[in-house]
């Protein structure tokens, strides 16, 4: 779960901060991966950061809670915390509804 520093060609990235491999972390990763692939059609890159391995990255970003998702690009910057039980709420919270691809 090393962070992947290079971003996608569009720079569209979702960063997910988690603490170790807990069920809560796994759940958040799984949900966000599904969102990226199915709802957003692979347009966004998912970067998972384990704060236990990279506490300084959490310090730099002032992350308090885990899991936290941060969307920086495209603006506006949005954050959402929790293990992402509500997909619709995640899309609204991260201001991503208009990137949503029609269901296949």
């Amino acid at each position, binding site marked *: 779960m090393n962070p992947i520093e290079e971003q996608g060609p569009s720079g569209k990235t979702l960063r997910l*901060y*988690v*603490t*170790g491999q807990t069920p*809560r972390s796994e*759940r*958040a990763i799984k949900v966000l991966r599904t969102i990226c692939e199915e709802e957003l059609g692979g347009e966004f890159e998912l970067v998972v950061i384990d*704060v*236990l391995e990279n*506490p*300084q990255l*959490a*310090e730099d970003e*002032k*992350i*308090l*809670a*885990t*899991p*936290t998702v941060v969307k920086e690009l495209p603006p506006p*910057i*949005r*954050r*959402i*915390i*929790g*293990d*992402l*039980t*509500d997909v619709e*709420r*995640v899309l609204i*919270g991260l201001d991503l509804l208009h990137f949503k691809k029609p269901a296949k």
Partner: protein
Amino acid sequence: MEVVQKHPTGITGFDHVAQGGLPRGRTTLLSGTSGSAKTIIAGQFLVEGVRKFGEKGVFVTFEETPAEIRKNLASFGWDVAAFEADKMLAFVDASPVFGAETLVSGSYDLGALIARIEHAVNSVGATRVAIDSIGPIFGQLPDAHVVRSELLRISHILKQLGVTTLMTAERTDDFGDIARYGVEEFVSDSVIVLRNTLEDEKRRRTLEILKFRGAGHGKGEYPFTIVPEVGVEVIPLSAIELTQSSSDQRIPSGVEELDEMCGGGFFRDSVILVSGATGAGKTLMVTEFLEGGVQNGERCMLFAFEESRGQLFRNAIGWGVDLEGMEREGLLRVHACYPEIMGVEDHLVRMKSAMDEFGPQRVAVDSLSALERVASLKGYREFVLGLTATMKEREIAGLCTSTTPSLTGGTTITEAHISTITDTIILMRYVEMFGEIRRGLTVLKMRGSYHEKVIREFTIDGKGMHISKTFRNVVGILAGQPQNIGTDELERINQMFEAS
């Protein structure tokens, strides 16, 4: 057997009150209303660690940004940025991100914050952690229950790391719940409460150790003050111990006849209270006391709260004493100021540091009762106790004056508070006789020594004070109602006692 050890904070007075310091390796909750100096104490805990003990620290801030804290602490002359550059201190910035509203979906914990704190503690090798203040995080995150249990986890982890933690919390009221959000329930091992109350229009800051589970501490409220360039200074009044040694060496009072009345002079480490109405000769007594000291080769110090230096010097010249010259030669130092410029706690701290700097053997305070004006009753009592203890600890001969409210005498608050801790009390009274005002003086008490019990008349001229004969044929001087009685009456009274 494992006992709770103490971790000295280095905050002046606090370690005395806390009987050694904060419980080592534990989390202590420091709770107070807004503006009660929580952040200063949290910062000072870390800064003194670096400066006095070479111990490293971590500052976790939930409220202000590190930049704001650096700036605020810089006003005390603490260069936090330099400590950071030397890897002695690190910040964990948990202050709110401006404009970032926190949205929640599902469950979460404070794992990232905990990882950051652990990382900071390990990377600088900290033994001290300050967390200031936990209130805002309850506002940032919607689930107070999660925040509470996560703070509990933080305090457990810090315990495992072996660091001593000071965690601050807001309270809404100076006398009420210990802290908001029920936080005292999980760090309940040790609780310190700060108060900043308004009493008789005067601010009074106090610190109270509510509990140190498994360890001793001073009980009750201790006043503290915030001194520029120093920080918080706790005044450990009730913790003052009567351990100073006692001297039987006599020192001249400055008036020969008074020495005789006291059985050979004052004791070297005694506190003397001189009480009298305005104009009765108290400042003259002070002047004689200082002159006597300087002639004896002692270093003397005067704290004047009623007259300016110029006035004091001019008046002393009138009695044939050159205070100004004595100061020039270096044996005397005069500090004159109005009591109103600061609170009594600040006066005490300043007087203490002035004494420590100059190292006097004699100190006169003229008048002590002037300070009644700037303190609440309780604050004043503590001040008097603190001052006399300070003099006794340093084995200084202290002479304090007290102005009685009425011309004929009576008692003052000062006398009520100080009389039991003073070793010697001298009363100066006006005596009205045959349409004339005269002055009388008596040694009311002198611990551990013979002293005269009579009331003597004294006069003042260009050479100072002259004590002469006793008032005969007058009764009721002390009560402020002198009455002349005839010789026959006096004889009758004397015979009455001889007969019985």
